[in-house]
């Protein structure tokens, strides 16, 4: 924790709270039928986004699956533009054309927000390739789930990246379930970092529930990838508290199991570690949370008040 520093730690804590409160607001909005379609929340996994994205430069890029709101927020997108997208409003980050699964920001090199399991993995590989092609020292983080780690796209991408020295960081957000199927029932070797050996690259397992561990280990790993242009595979072991999507009651896991992970909550753990160092106290934490809640409330209000996309929007952006 000490190596992170107080200022950075406060930023990270705030980012994790923004993600958590944003997703809680999404669930509420869904119950109220303001948000429809699919909606996959990130609650429980916040340490991963925060511990990784904070190491990227402006020129670096990243891509992820449909569980994509938090990465957008941590990278610097506003809660307003993402919430408005959830509501299908024209003020949304992709003008109401994508919804929950398709958060993108060209300005911030957020390459989405993808709905097909594993479909984004070659895309991230290509973004990293482009940076190298243009002679820049940039990297790409490609996030995907444990379910996607068995997809052909993952193996094809890692093979290409290893073959061509593409600086891509493959982060498996291993939340231990591909929808309702436990990883051990879908992936022959659940130590996903072991896949790296098959491609002659490095693989790491990281406790994705511990923001300090994620942040400190990823700092070195990303620096090394930037320097060597050799891809890596990270098995980021984490857990989602809610169902795969809002329509999932989560009957495939026990309440005790979920509780055991909630007891290791990444925000509580990080906050406690900060308190030990005297970087924050209970009152300051409450004040911070209050401020974050107000920010999310404002985003919800913005989304509610925003106009629907005009009907001519249906036919725009088909071709560039």
């Amino acid at each position, binding site marked *: 924790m000490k190596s992170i520093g107080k200022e950075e730690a406060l930023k990270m804590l705030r980012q994790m709270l923004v993600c958590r409160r944003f997703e809680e607001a999404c669930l509420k909005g869904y119950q109220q039928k303001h948000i429809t379609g699919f909606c996959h929340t990130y609650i429980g996994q916040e340490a991963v986004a925060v511990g990784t994205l904070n190491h990227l430069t402006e020129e670096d890029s990243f891509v992820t699956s449909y569980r994509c709101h938090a990465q957008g927020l941590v990278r610097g997108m506003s809660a307003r533009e993402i919430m408005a997208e959830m509501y299908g409003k024209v003020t949304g980050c992709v003008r109401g054309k*994508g919804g929950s699964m398709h958060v*993108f920001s060209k300005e911030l090199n957020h390459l989405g927000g993808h709905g097909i399991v594993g479909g984004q993995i070659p*895309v991230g590989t290509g973004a990293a*390739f482009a940076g190298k092609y*243009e002679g820049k020292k940039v990297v790409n983080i490609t996030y995907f789930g444990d379910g996607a780690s068995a997809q052909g796209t993952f193996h*094809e991408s890692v093979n290409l990246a290893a073959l061509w020295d593409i600086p891509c960081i493959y982060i498996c957000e291993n939340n231990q379930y591909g929808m309702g199927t436990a990883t051990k029932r879908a992936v022959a070797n659940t130590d996903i970092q072991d896949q790296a050996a098959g491609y002659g690259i490095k693989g790491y397992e990281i406790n994705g529930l511990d923001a300090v561990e994620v942040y400190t280990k990823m700092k070195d790993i990303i620096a090394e990838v930037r320097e060597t242009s050799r891809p890596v595979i990270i098995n980021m072991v984490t857990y989602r508290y809610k169902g795969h999507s809002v329509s999932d009651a989560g009957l495939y896991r026990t309440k005790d199991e979920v509780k055991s992970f909630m007891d290791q909550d990444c925000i509580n753990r990080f906050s406690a570690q900060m308190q030990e160092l005297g970087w924050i106290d209970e009152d300051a934490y409450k004040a911070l949370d209050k401020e974050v809640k107000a920010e999310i409330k404002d985003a919800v209000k913005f989304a509610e008040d925003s106009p629907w996309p005009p009907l001519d929007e249906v036919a725009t952006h088909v*071709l*560039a």
Partner: protein
Amino acid sequence: MPVIEYRTALNQALEEEMLRDGKVFIMGEEVAEYNGAYKVTKGLLDKFGPERVKDTPITESGFTGLGVGAAMMGLRPVVEYMSWNFSLVAIDQIISNAAKMYYMTGGQFNVPMVMRGANGAAAQVSSQHSHNLESFYAHIPGLIVMAPATPYDAKGMLKAAIRDNNPVIFLENEFLYGMTGEVPEEEYIIPIGKGDIKREGTDVTLVAHLRQVILAQEAADILAKEGISVEIVDPRTIKPLDIDLIAESVRKTKRLVVTEEGHSFCGFGSEVATQIHDLCFDDLDHPVVRVSQNENPLPYAKNLEAESLPSVEKIVAGVRKVMYRK
């Protein structure tokens, strides 16, 4: 004017565009050291080096998706499929990613990527190597589908495809690679969506693209001897379709035959027929006649293959039918 092969015309287009724009690069199976399975990329590795002419593993989904990501970051990949049959391995990357990206990002990320290769039947290569995918890809909003029939068209259209800011499905054909034709030395571009009258006529409009244009020419020669004047309209771009050019011809001839190598059900000819019924219903002297591949996978045996595919004879028969002749 120099007379060159279709493959050479494509090669010239690639070379010229790579010289013009450093963001253009080529990748695909056997495109570099092997000089291309059909020699379309011959010599380009020597000219541009391995950073811009990249041999890939046989993993179409991976390298197509890599192209999508590279294009989102501003590069202009030209992806070669040794044949379009293999694009089926990559179809999720083409449809879910390349085609949808500009729309689902609200206009933020476009995908300037050309995917090219041989489409349709070759000489007796059987079911899995003979797909005609124009109707598949043309069905999807966000994709441009081009299909040049001559060396002249191949060069001018590929240059337009590479300069376009959208994903382009560029369909070639194994039989066409060795065909020759005049190609000017000076630069030219054939705009996307612009069809071409390949032969002027007055009695029947015959719409044909890709290899069907060659068969249509032969059919028109036979029919001319019977006193039937055929106008061959080659749309060149399947989507966006130059329906105005076809309609203009139909208004003159009052009759339309569409020939395509793909299957008939939901085929390209259905689309042309529907649009012409909308635009020229009162002009038509006969329902639109379609010539296409039978509704079976393409078999290997020479006689069965010929029975399945559209042919000069089938096109001649189609034209006679639309003329109410036997």
